[in-house]
């Protein structure tokens, strides 16, 4: 950290260079994956994993170069938020992609979700047919308590009530 120690400076610069290059390679890997993978969900793998590591390496390089202690907490918080948000967005895209059939079934060696989704869809269709009223469409996204739409189930433990 002493400014006149040129040896240390050179080492830090070298480490920074390596970090930046590997981080950029990770982004390149993600881009190649986006181009080459056959369907949406494989592409989500490419869009999430190398990019998280790439960001980590680039942030580490920034931290090394700025040499101020206060950048480290900022960089750490930025990376943790990345860790927290990337799986969620990948999950939402993957979920929507699966439901809208943006996948190649012939490339799946096993699919244990298909039957569940079909069953849930069947139950929902049956419900809709039962209601058979003009207000049927709005139940399309409504809570289907026991089914696969588990995230729309009301929280049982929050005691949320008026």
């Amino acid at each position, binding site marked *: 950290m002493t400014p006149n120690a040129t040896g240390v400076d050179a080492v830090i610069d070298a480490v920074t260079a390596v970090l930046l290059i590997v981080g950029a*390679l*990770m982004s390149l*890997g*993600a881009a*190649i*994956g986006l181009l*080459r*993978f*056959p*369907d949406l*969900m*494989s592409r*989500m*793998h*490419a869009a*999430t*994993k*190398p990019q*998280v*590591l*790439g960001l*980590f390496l680039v942030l580490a390089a920034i931290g090394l170069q700025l040499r101020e202690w*206060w*950048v480290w*907490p*900022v960089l*750490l*918080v930025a990376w943790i938020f990345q*860790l*927290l948000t*990337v*799986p*969620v967005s*990948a*999950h939402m895209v*993957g*979920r929507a992609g*699966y439901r809208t059939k943006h996948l190649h079934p012939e*490339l*799946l*060696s*096993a*699919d*244990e*979700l*298909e039957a*569940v*989704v079909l069953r849930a869809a069947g139950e929902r269709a049956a419900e809709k047919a039962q209601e058979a009223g003009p207000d049927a469409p709005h139940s399309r996204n409504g809570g289907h308590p*026991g*089914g*696969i739409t*588990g*995230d729309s*189930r009301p*929280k049982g*433990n*929050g*005691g*949320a*009530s008026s």
Partner: protein
Amino acid sequence: MSRRRISFRTELPLLVWLVVVWGALWRDFSPGNLVFGALIAVIVARIFYLPPVELSGRFNVLRAIPFVVVFLGKVVAASFQVMYLAIFRGPSVTNAVVAVPLRSHSDLMVTATGHVISLIPGSLVVEVDRSTSTLYIHGLNVRNDSDTAKLRREVQDTEASLIRIMGTRAEMDALQAEGWPATRGVSS
């Protein structure tokens, strides 16, 4: 707004995190700034209604540190694996969607497992069924049944490690009863 009171102790990790974010964003960790941040954290946590996160009240640091190290290693491995598959396998990669039932029914544990699983090699959460606490995982490069079994075991190992770090007593006991030795390492 009625809300079940959660104890200060279970809320403390959230408040500490909010204060750390506050300090980091202001780039100022002086006591005055932190006290003000803590004040705002308490106000935010009191006013804004969110379902309370049910922490179990225990957190095993000795198990958390090796878990974090292994996790970071796996993130690196995941990146290189995806890169390798992208370049050398590309369009012909074979995948699978696998249902993995979890032991725990706590939202926090299912969420944490899903997050970790999404960041380690070859798996991505497609769907969560809260009522049965089942994760539907999309596995990259899963070619046959033995790969499927491996993926399923990896997810359940991850959940086991997380339970050992911050699961409730009941979950720990269930884990023990299942025959997972407590001394088992975090890696699969």
